[in-house]
C-alpha cells in the first residue's frame, strides 16, 4: 500500500497554498450555511451574520449595548415627542411611535427605503400563513401607517421601557417582494431572497450579494447605492466550512482570513488553536449573553428543598471548570444577568466551591451519608438525580461529566440522560419531563425574562404548553418585579428593580447559574475595526468600520 500512496502523492501537484492575495478582499469562515436569506423566515445565526453585511435594521443594540438607530434618524422618546401614549379600546395603554428613515437609506437598485416598505413588511410579518417563525413582535404591532415617503408610525399594544426597540422588525422592499406575497402561503418559497438573491433591490446595507453558491459560499460586493461610510473591502466572501479541522486548515493556508466569532470555532477548539498558533492571529474572546445554567424542576420533591439546591451549587467548582476547560474565558454566573449588562449587580448571594458546606446542607435536609456511598433519607430513599442536556454538544457533555464526578464526592448520584436538542426542547422541557437540564439562554441586552420566570408562564395542558418557566418557579415577588420592570420607564428606578430580581433569583435558585459562554473571534493581525457585540446582534452591522492595516507588509513577513 505504501507504494500506491507514494504514486498517488507524486501524481498530484500540490495546489498553490496561497491564492493570489488581493489587498481589498476579505474571506470569512463560518461553520454553517444559511438555510434561507429571507430576513423573516427561519431565524438562524448564519443568516443574521450574512444579512448583517447587506441589510440594516431599523434599530439595534450597539457594541456598548446601547439602543441606536440604524435606518431611522432619531429614536422615538416621550421627550422628543416621537413617542406618544395612547389609550387602546380595551382600556390598556399602548404607544404610538414615529420613525423617519434616513435620507440616504436606499435599496441597492438606488430606490429609497420608504414608509410603504415598512407597511408591507408588517403585513407580511403578521400574516399567519407566511411562515414567519417569530411572530410575537408582529402581534404587538397593532398598526403601521406610512405618513410620507420617509416617515411611518407604529402602534404597539403595550407600553414597555424598551418601546423604541424595533430591532427585529425586518423592512422588506415592497416593490420586489409584493409579487411573492400575492399568495401568502407560498411566500416562503417564492421570496426573491431565496429564488433570486442577487437581484438588485433586496439590500439596503453597505454590501450587496452578487453570488450564492449553495452550501459553499456567498460573495458580496460594495453596494453602489449605499449612502453611509464607504466600506474598506471591495469584496467579501463568506465561506461555510462545517468541519472545524478544515476551518482551521483553511485559515492557516490563507484561504480564509478570519473566522467569525458568532458562528465559528467552539471555545474549546479556539483555545486549542490559539495554543498551537500563538501569535499568528488576533484572537478576541467575548463573553456574551449565552447564559449556561441548569434548570431544576421545582415540582420534584427532592429539588423543592432549597437546601438541596444550594448544596448542589456549593458542591461544584465552577471556577475550576471555567479555568481548566475554558481557560478562564467564560465568567462564572451568579444570576441570569451578565456582567456586561448595565442592570447587572454583583450584590447577590454567591456560592463558591465549598464541599463541606454542601455536605452540611444535605445533612440538614435529611440526606445522610454513610462513608462514601450515595446519601439516603430517613425513608431509605437514595439521593439520585438525573441531568439532561443536548447530546452532541461536546462542551456540555464534558462539563456534565465533571459535575457528575463532583456531586458524587458529596454523596449525590447523578445519572446523565442526554437528548438531541429537538427532543430536549421540543418535548422534555415543554412537557416538564425533566429533573435537571443544562442549556443556555441567549437574549438581547436588558431582556426581561418574563416567559422564563413568571408564574403564569409555566407550561401546562391548561395553557397549551406555552411559556418557558420550565422550572415551575412560583414566586409572587418575582412576578411583581417582572411586571414592574417592564413598565418602569425611569432607568434609575428600573435598575433597583433589576438588582432585587437578581438577588431573589440567586437566593431562591430556581436554576443553578454556571457561566456566560464566550465567543472566539479569530482575526488576522492586519484587520482592525471588528468589534464583537456580545449579544445576539452580529458584529457585521458595523462592517464599514473594518479595515486593513499594513496588510502587505504582514503578508511578506510571513
Amino acid at each position: 500500500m505504501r507504494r500506491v500512496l507514494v504514486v498517488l502523492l507524486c501524481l498530484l501537484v500540490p495546489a498553490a497554498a496561497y491564492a493570489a492575495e488581493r489587498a481589498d478582499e476579505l474571506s470569512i469562515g463560518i461553520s454553517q450555511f444559511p438555510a434561507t436569506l429571507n430576513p423573516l423566515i427561519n431565524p438562524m445565526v448564519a443568516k443574521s451574520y450574512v444579512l448583517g453585511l447587506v441589510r440594516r435594521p431599523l434599530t439595534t443594540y450597539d457594541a456598548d449595548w446601547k439602543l441606536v438607530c440604524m435606518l431611522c434618524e432619531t429614536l422615538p422618546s416621550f421627550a422628543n415627542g416621537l413617542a406618544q401614549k395612547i389609550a387602546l379600546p380595551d382600556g390598556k395603554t399602548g404607544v404610538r411611535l414615529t420613525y423617519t428613515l434616513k435620507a440616504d437609506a436606499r435599496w441597492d437598485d438606488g430606490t429609497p427605503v420608504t414608509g410603504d416598505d415598512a407597511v408591507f413588511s408588517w403585513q407580511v410579518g403578521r400574516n399567519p400563513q407566511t411562515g414567519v417563525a417569530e411572530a410575537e413582535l408582529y402581534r404587538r404591532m397593532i398598526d403601521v401607517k406610512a405618513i410620507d415617503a420617509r416617515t411611518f408610525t407604529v402602534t404597539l399594544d403595550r407600553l414597555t421601557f424598551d418601546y423604541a426597540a424595533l430591532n427585529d422588525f425586518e423592512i422588506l422592499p415592497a416593490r420586489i417582494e409584493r409579487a411573492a406575497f400575492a399568495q401568502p402561503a407560498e411566500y416562503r418559497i417564492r421570496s426573491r431572497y431565496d429564488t433570486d438573491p442577487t437581484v438588485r433591490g433586496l439590500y439596503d446595507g453597505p454590501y450587496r450579494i452578487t453570488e450564492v453558491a449553495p452550501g459553499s459560499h456567498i460573495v458580496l460586493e460594495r453596494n453602489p447605492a449605499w449612502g453611509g461610510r464607504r466600506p474598506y473591502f471591495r469584496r467579501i466572501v463568506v465561506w461555510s466550512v462545517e468541519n472545524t479541522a478544515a476551518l482551521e486548515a483553511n485559515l492557516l493556508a490563507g484561504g480564509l482570513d478570519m473566522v467569525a466569532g458568532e458562528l465559528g470555532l467552539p471555545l474549546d477548539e479556539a483555545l486549542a488553536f490559539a495554543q498551537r498558533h500563538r501569535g499568528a492571529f488576533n484572537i478576541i474572546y467575548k463573553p456574551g449573553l449565552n447564559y449556561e445554567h441548569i434548570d431544576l424542576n421545582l415540582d420534584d420533591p427532592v429539588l423543592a428543598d432549597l437546601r438541596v439546591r444550594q448544596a448542589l451549587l456549593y458542591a461544584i467548582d465552577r471556577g475550576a471548570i471555567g479555568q481548566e476547560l475554558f481557560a478562564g474565558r467564560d465568567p462564572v454566573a451568579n444570576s441570569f444577568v451578565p456582567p456586561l449588562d448595565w442592570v447587572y449587580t454583583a450584590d447577590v448571594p454567591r456560592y463558591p466551591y465549598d464541599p463541606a458546606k454542601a455536605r452540611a446542607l444535605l445533612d440538614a435536609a435529611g440526606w445522610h451519608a454513610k462513608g462514601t456511598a450515595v446519601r439516603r433519607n430517613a425513608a431509605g430513599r437514595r439521593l439520585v438525580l438525573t441531568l439532561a442536556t443536548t447530546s452532541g454538544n461536546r462542551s456540555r457533555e464534558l462539563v456534565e461529566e465533571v459535575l457528575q464526578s463532583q456531586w458524587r464526592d458529596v454523596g449525590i448520584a447523578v445519572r446523565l440522560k442526554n437528548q438531541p436538542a429537538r427532543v430536549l426542547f421540543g418535548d422534555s422541557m415543554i412537557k416538564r419531563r425533566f429533573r435537571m437540564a443544562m442549556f443556555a439562554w441567549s437574549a438581547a441586552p436588558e431582556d426581561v425574562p418574563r416567559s422564563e420566570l413568571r408564574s403564569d408562564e409555566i407550561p401546562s395542558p391548561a395553557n397549551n404548553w406555552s411559556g418557558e418557566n420550565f422550572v415551575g418557579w412560583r414566586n409572587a415577588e418575582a412576578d411583581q418585579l417582572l411586571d414592574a420592570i417592564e413598565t418602569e420607564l425611569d432607568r434609575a428606578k428600573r435598575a433597583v428593580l433589576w438588582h432585587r430580581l437578581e438577588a431573589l433569583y440567586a437566593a431562591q435558585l430556581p436554576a443553578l447559574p454556571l457561566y456566560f459562554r464566550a465567543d472566539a473571534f479569530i482575526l488576522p493581525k492586519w484587520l482592525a475595526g471588528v468589534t464583537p457585540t456580545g449579544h445576539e446582534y452580529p458584529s457585521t452591522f458595523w462592517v464599514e468600520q473594518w479595515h486593513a492595516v499594513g496588510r502587505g507588509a504582514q503578508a511578506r513577513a510571513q
Partner: protein
Amino acid sequence: MSRFVVRRIVEILVVLAVMSLVIYALIGLMPGDPVDLMIASNPHLTVADAARLKALYGLDKPLLERYAAWLGAALHGDFGYSRLYARSTLAVLIPRLGNTALLMGMSFALTLALAWPLGLLAARRPGSWFDGVANLSSFATISVPSFWLALMLILVFAVQLGWLPPGGAATIGAGGVADRADHLVLPVITLTLVNFGPQLRYMRAAMMETLHQDYIRTARAKGAGEARILTRHALRNALIPLITVVALSFGSLFSGALVTETMFAYPGMGKLIYDAVLGNDYNLALAGLLFATLMTLLANFAADLAYAAADPRIAYR
C-alpha cells in the same frame, strides 16, 4: 432475455416502492420535526407559533396521508423542498451524487486494481509466504474501523506532516483540478483500504475454486503456459461468481462512503444523508436514502446482465 430484463425492472420498481414506504415510515419515527428544531434554536418561538408552523408545513396530518401526498409529487419528479438547504431536494442532491460517484468510482477502480491481482497471485500458491502476507493484509483491512483509519490518516498526513488537507472538497480561494485531487487523496485511500480486504478474499476464493477444476488440469496436461492458464482459463471462469459478489458489495461500499465523507467533510451523498437525518430534513433524507437504494438495485441489475453475458450457459427467459 428481454422478458428477463422487463421482469427485473418491474422487480426493482416494486422493491423501490416498498423501500420508499419503509423509509418514509422510519423517518416518521425520528424525534420531533422541523418545527421542533426551530423551537430548539429560537427561544422566542411560542407554542402557538409552533402549532401554526406545523399546520403550514403539513406536519399535523397522519403518516399515510403525508406519504400518499409525497408519493404523488415524487412521481411527477417533485421530491419536495429541503429544509436545511432551502431549495428543491433534487437541486441539493444531484451535485452531491456527482461527488460521491467520483469518490466511489476512483476508490473502486483502485481497489480492484490492487486486490484482484494480489488475490489471483495468492490463489496460485496457497500456503506460500506471499499468500500468507496477502491474507493477513486482507484480514487487517477488514478489521480496521474505517472512521479510525481516516482519523489516523488525518493525524499523520494532515496534522503532523501537513502534506494533505484534513477535509473538504477544495481549498478556499485555490480551485483547479490539482486542488480537487489533493482533497480526494485521503478519502480515496480510506475507502480503498476498507474495501480491499473483501475483494482480495473474493478473488482468491474464486480462483482457488476454478484452479481445481478438471479443465485446468486438462489445460496443464496439454502443456499450456502458466500465465495463459491463469488468465485465459481460470480467470474467465472465476469472474462469473465474482460479478455477483461485487454487485452485492455495492451497499457496503456506500456505507463506507458515508463514514469517509463524514470524516473528511467531503460533500457527497453519504454525508448529506447523515446531515439530513441529524437535521431532521425529512425530504432530503428520504430522497437521499432512496437514491442510494436505487443505485444499489441498479448495480445488482447490471451484475445480472453482466453475469448473463459472461456465462453463455445461462439463458434467461
